[in-house]
């Protein structure tokens, strides 16, 4: 039976982890390669890097990190942030990423998702959708970390990216992100019910029960979290043991 995945996400800025692990055994709290290795050794099903570097000049830095991480972590590696061109994707895949996540560029032109999935295969194209509730039962796609409203309905957009060859959707609730109040399960359910590709839940995890909610009530195939793991509140293994105790199938 296919297992539900737990994916820790590391935010990287100018080559350093900004929201990172606070474990005591870390030699260097800002080194993304070291942290990815800890997660991978701890049972992470995949590793996700989100490059939040503002300038294009620093693209090389993330490439270098991906190269080093891929030589030490033998679980799938997804890299997102600033992926705008076919060349960006080529560079990341050659460096050792297994998947790339496309956000703003997909909203600007969904044809880019089509072009990328035709060229590299759907298996490595993840579309990251940032959604915010605008009225009852209605969510809209936002870009630039929730600052820019696009007017695009999230269900319509999710269907569009699926048709255009996305292999997975990484769905972040901008209302919940950073709040630790749990995933937006209503939003998740809406998207998992209306698409046939795996959906990764993101934004809002504060307790282990939130993982359960995202998977069981939201229908997510995978759950992504950052701070709950970074600050050592829970280890990945604990999250998996908790889910297993509630009859959710995980890889242990």
């Amino acid at each position, binding site marked *: *039976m*296919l*297992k*539900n*995945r737990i994916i820790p996400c590391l935010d990287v800025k100018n080559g350093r982890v900004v929201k990172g692990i606070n474990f005591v055994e870390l030699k260097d709290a800002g080194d993304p390669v070291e942290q990815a290795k800890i997660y*991978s050794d701890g049972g992470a*099903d995949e590793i996700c890097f989100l490059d939040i570097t503002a300038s294009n000049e620093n693209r090389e830095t993330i490439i270098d990190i991906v190269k080093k991480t*891929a*030589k030490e972590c*033998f*679980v*799938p590696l997804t890299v997102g942030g600033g992926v705008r061109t076919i060349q960006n994707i080529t560079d990341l*895949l*050659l*460096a*050792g*990423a*297994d998947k790339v996540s496309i956000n703003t560029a997909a909203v600007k032109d969904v044809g880019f998702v089509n072009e990328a999935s035709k060229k*590299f*295969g*759907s*298996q*490595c194209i993840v579309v990251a959708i940032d959604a915010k509730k605008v009225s009852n039962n209605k969510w809209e796609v936002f870009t630039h970390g929730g600052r820019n409203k696009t007017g695009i309905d999230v269900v319509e957009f999710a269907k569009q990216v699926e048709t255009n060859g996305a*292999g*997975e959707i990484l769905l972040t609730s901008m209302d919940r992100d950073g709040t630790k109040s749990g995933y937006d399960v209503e939003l998740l359910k809406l998207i998992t019910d209306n698409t*046939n*590709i*795996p959906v990764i839940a993101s934004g809002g995890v504060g307790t282990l029960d939130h993982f359960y909610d995202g998977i069981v009530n939201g229908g997510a*195939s*995978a759950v992504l979290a950052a701070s709950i793991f970074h600050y050592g509140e829970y280890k990945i293994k604990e999250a998996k043991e908790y889910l297993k105790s509630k009859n959710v199938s995980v*890889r242990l």
Partner: protein
Amino acid sequence: MNVTIVDYQSGNISSVINSFTEVAKGKVNLEVTSDINKIKSSDKIVLPGQGSFKSCVDSLNNINGLAETLKEFAIINKKPLLGICVGLQMFADVGYEEAETKGLGWIAGKVSKIDNQNGKFKLPHIGWNEIEIQKESKIFKDIKNKSHMYFVHSYEFIPEDKSVISSTTDYSSKIVCSVERDNLFGTQFHPEKSDKIGLKIIDNFLKL
């Protein structure tokens, strides 16, 4: 020992290179090439494959003499070859991804879309699933039954002769996830992305 990872422009093979490099360290001479003479003189071959069946077959056929060389190596001379993902799927006679496409025809059978029971199961089949070992296999030495492997695919290989199947996995139906015949091996899952247990499979292949 010389092991060649066939680079025929079939998409992203960085992870295959990284994992084999890790396992081969100091023991095996690893080459990544599409050079026919180097392939001919190697002891083992790894045939990766990403993207669609059609795109992989097309890329392989684009390199003059490659298909024949691989056939001579694996089928006529029966030297060890490991196909991964679409690399395995290409062993079939025919594939139906994008368009009906002739495969290498090494193991009779076809590659068709996984029946997801009208959307009841999501596709691609992405993530970690357990393998159920169906027969003793040289590459599964010290691999426990029901070990987790990483999958990402929407199409499955259906061989005519079921005795080639070395493991299956349970999704919308029992999916063939590895085959073995003589020295021809194939995995639908990605050993190179399957953590330490995947590296063990690579090690088993390199130690053959």
